[in-house]
């Protein structure tokens, strides 16, 4: 019994000694394969030259055959429930729908604030970033035209004359 234990301990020590001598190497080949596929997929979805615009959550943009790119501009979103300027809710869409006047006061205030902010930044940065009156309009495809007409009219009263519509590429 004792001899067996001694012999086992010696074998165990030898085994450990031989394990320590083995250098573990990381197998990177499969990881490289994954990265290569991922890289090709991302290169396919890459946007070069132009601002990246993502659809606002809950908005179904209309399909279009246009392939033009955007320039960096403030974004006005018209969802079925609310009007959003640069990510902040401004007023309910129902309110815009119900009003008879073309000008939407809440939207006018929000866009005026955006304009002042852009002009303030332009003053600090010199002539490199000046206010160009560009605006991106994201609207749900089911919105009636008169709502968009009011939004576009109000944008123009604040000085945003260059409006670009955001659409989903067919």
């Amino acid at each position, binding site marked *: 019994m004792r001899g067996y234990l001694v012999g086992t301990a010696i074998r165990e020590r030898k085994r450990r000694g031989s394990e320590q001598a083995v250098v573990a190497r990381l197998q990177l080949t499969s990881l490289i394969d994954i990265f290569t596929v991922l890289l090709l997929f991302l290169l396919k979805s890459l946007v070069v030259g132009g601002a990246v615009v993502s659809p606002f959550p809950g908005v179904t943009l209309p399909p279009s055959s246009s392939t033009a*790119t955007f320039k960096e501009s403030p974004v006005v979103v018209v969802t079925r429930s609310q009007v959003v300027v640069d990510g902040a809710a401004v007023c309910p869409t129902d309110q815009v729908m119900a009003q008879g006047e073309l000008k939407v006061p809440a939207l006018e205030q929000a866009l005026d604030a955006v304009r002042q902010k852009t002009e303030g930044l332009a003053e600090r940065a010199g002539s490199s970033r000046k206010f160009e009156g560009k605006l991106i309009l994201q609207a749900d495809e089911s919105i009636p*035209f008169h709502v968009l007409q009011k939004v576009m009219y109000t944008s123009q009263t604040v000085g945003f004359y260059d409006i670009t519509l955001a659409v989903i590429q067919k």
Partner: protein
Amino acid sequence: MSLRKKRKRAASEPEELNLLPLMSLFVALVPALLYSAVFVPVSALGLDFPGTGGAAGASPLALAVRLADSTYTVEGVPDSAYAPIPRLTGEADPLRELRAELDDVHARYPTSGGAILVVSPQVPYRDVVQVMDQVREAGFGNSTLLGAQP
């Protein structure tokens, strides 16, 4: 094993490729590409407004497409009167008919550019974009949007 044998064996084994620099490159590239990748392709559709110097203002032809609640009508073409195209019947493809009329106008007036879209208040935005597409694809360029009286 003698030292000579060990050396001989090491020399005969293929040398492993060092993949770590490639991994570092991938690790740097993937987040950069993820940041600028677009998974839902959103594109820009330009439009003009009355009095802002659009193509329709400079065109010799005052082409207008009227989007009423139930019809499309091509207007403003001299010596031609196009009948309204019913757009909610579901029988024929009304956009194809509209496109054929626009192609006909463009063939007769190839130098004209821009069209005025007179849109009724209740017409959905999707329909407006569809007509803007037809106008652009027919060769008239950007559309000028105008609201029709309710």
